[in-house]
């Protein structure tokens, strides 16, 4: 059997990033402010973690205007969903191995 620790996604080992991916995996797009309230993190913290996920092409950003106010929405990509699934499997593998 492969070592489950090697299967863990380095980018997703960060708790906030993992939570962002969880929300995006369960929803068809999520707004910045709603994400901030749900995760209870600061603007800067959320923005930097979103940037890291965007760099990996795990999510895409769509900007639009709602009532003339800028509205930023994030969506998970297929690549992101695959990585997220693989990471969860690895997490389960690690926990199983230790028990």
């Amino acid at each position: 059997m492969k070592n489950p620790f090697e299967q863990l996604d380095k980018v997703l080992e960060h708790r906030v990033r993992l939570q962002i991916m969880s929300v995006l995996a369960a929803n068809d797009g999520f707004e910045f402010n709603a994400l901030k309230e749900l995760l209870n993190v600061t603007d800067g913290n959320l923005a930097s973690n979103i940037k890291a996920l965007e760099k990996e092409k795990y999510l895409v950003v769509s900007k639009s205007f709602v009532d003339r106010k800028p509205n930023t929405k994030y969506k998970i990509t297929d690549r992101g969903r695959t990585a997220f699934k693989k990471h969860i499997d690895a997490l389960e593998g690690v926990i199983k191995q230790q028990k």
Partner: protein
Amino acid sequence: MKDVSEYEKDLASIRSMMDRSAKFISLSGLSGILAGVYALGGATAAYFLIQYPRSPFSYRTQTISEPVTLIQLILIACVVLGASVSTGLWLTQRKTLKENTKLWTPASKLLMQKIAIPLATGGLFVLIMLYTGHFGLAAPACLIFYGLALIHGSSNTLDEIRYLGFSEIILGLICSLYPGYGLVFWAVGFGVLHIIYGAILYNKYDS
């Protein structure tokens, strides 16, 4: 390397985030109980309007021919609906304040949208039935469309709502076999079932 308990926390936070972002779970059980009580009150008023002094469980043969009676019935239904919705919003908002969450989240908006579509369709359909004189199936249509609306919305809220939806549909289908007993089935579906499911939610989630 992180400790194993950290990975367990990771998994737990994934589950919690997926649930909390997609599901609105601050529904108030008490508001369900009160909605049931309002519905029973409305059904009693309707009984005195159209069926008294005959037993509420007897087969009703007379039809509603007076337009005034029909308007009074619709008025009773609207009062019950208005009272239930406003009590529900008020008590649910109180619950979100206590839990330090919000009433308007992406999940609650999605829940409202998903419930609204079958509910508005059913409401218009029933009004058209009443307008065209098809009174016999109006009560079961209310129950069936309400049940469909609940099942449609249930993926965005507590699981119990799905079972309430199935109960309403089953009751509605039985009711459609007995058109003369519409009022009794209506009282059971909107009164008794709401009180039962409201009590279940109250016991499980309200503190």
